[in-house]
């Protein structure tokens, strides 16, 4: 499986552990910092930050905690921010169902994962039942 932005030149990776609900706020702040550094527009910044918020909360609530790695990446057409969320939780048995609008295994609105996918340019979900889940997203400048 190809990871978006992996073959491009990358800056230093910054990591935010996601263990408490305060860490979700910190992950969001890191995403915003990277988005500003990368030069994303205000709308793109807000979209990335919101996606980061959703995915970080999923990592915490459904994955039982994990980490977010973020970095600024570049390609010939421009720059972007790549965020990688990893947990070692129960994994997702049915990814099609998990990505369906309005479906949630918890008490949320069921729009977090599917909404986050619509908010970013590249979205890769890797999951293994009993092993954990990794979500990589990239938002490019336009």
């Amino acid at each position: 499986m190809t990871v978006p932005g992996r073959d491009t030149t990358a800056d230093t990776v910054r990591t935010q552990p996601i263990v408490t609900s305060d860490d979700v706020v910190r992950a969001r702040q890191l995403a915003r910092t990277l988005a500003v550094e990368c030069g994303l527009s205000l709308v793109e910044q807000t979209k990335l930050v919101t996606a980061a918020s959703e995915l970080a909360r999923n990592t915490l609530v459904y994955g039982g905690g994990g980490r977010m790695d973020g970095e600024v990446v570049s390609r010939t057409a421009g720059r972007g921010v790549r965020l990688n969320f990893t947990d070692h939780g129960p994994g997702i048995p049915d990814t099609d169902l998990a990505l369906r609008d309005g479906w949630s295994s918890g008490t949320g609105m069921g729009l977090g994962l599917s909404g986050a996918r619509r908010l970013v340019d590249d979205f890769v979900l890797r999951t293994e039942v009993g092993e954990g889940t990794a979500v990589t997203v990239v938002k490019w400048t336009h």
Partner: protein
Amino acid sequence: MTGRREELAAGWIEVVSRTLATRVSRAELDRELHELYSAIVEALGSGGLDTGAEAWTEVRALLVELSRNRARQGFSPAETAVSVFALKAGLERQLDQGSPGDVAAYLTLSRLTDALGMFTVDSYTTTREQIISSQAEELLELSTPVVKLWDGVIGVPLVGTLDSARTQVVMEKLLQALVDTGSAKAIIDITGVPAVDTEVAQHLLKTVVAARLMGAECIVSGIRPQIAQTIVALGIEFGDIVTKATLADALRHALRGLSDADSVRGRGASQA
């Protein structure tokens, strides 16, 4: 330790007061450490070296008090722990003239001091955490004001991150303010909320529904262009909830609603 009591205690106090310099009065230190010293000697006399044991209750209580005071006064953990660890320095000086028995006793005491020192740092941290969490609570209260915008219209300007705890406070204050002021309209302004994700949206919707159950209408204002686009991309639907771009628009909408209601009531009264 009992025999050279004054000497040892004085050495101890000297080391501690040198580190803490002018921040604690000499008399206070004197009292604190003498009390602690007596308690330690007593505990050593009556029970073993297990600092968790019954005999050490008094010492632990004194240490908790000491670290609590230090934490409140803004001392660092090192400045707090030095009060305990400095006991070693006082004893060390006596080692020069000591017998092998003294050295063995010193080593035992040293282990004991370490255990007590750790305990001090632990209770220091606990106190600091308590202080931080109570400050966070105060901040939560302060950061969610409910203001009266007009007769019958209240406003809640939200600034910063909206999490579950904060929303709970907002909802409670908003609903209480609706009753207290007899208002029929409430405006929730999210201009200061940097990002609206599904959790924030869900909290907002719940607050609006709760207000509606009480017969009040809620208007959500301060939806900036980037927030509007994000909400659409996320797929969140606000349904029939009135949303406005600015607080001014929301206030105009609320006042129009109020005057309509007034004129209906007025007609009803004249016909009767």
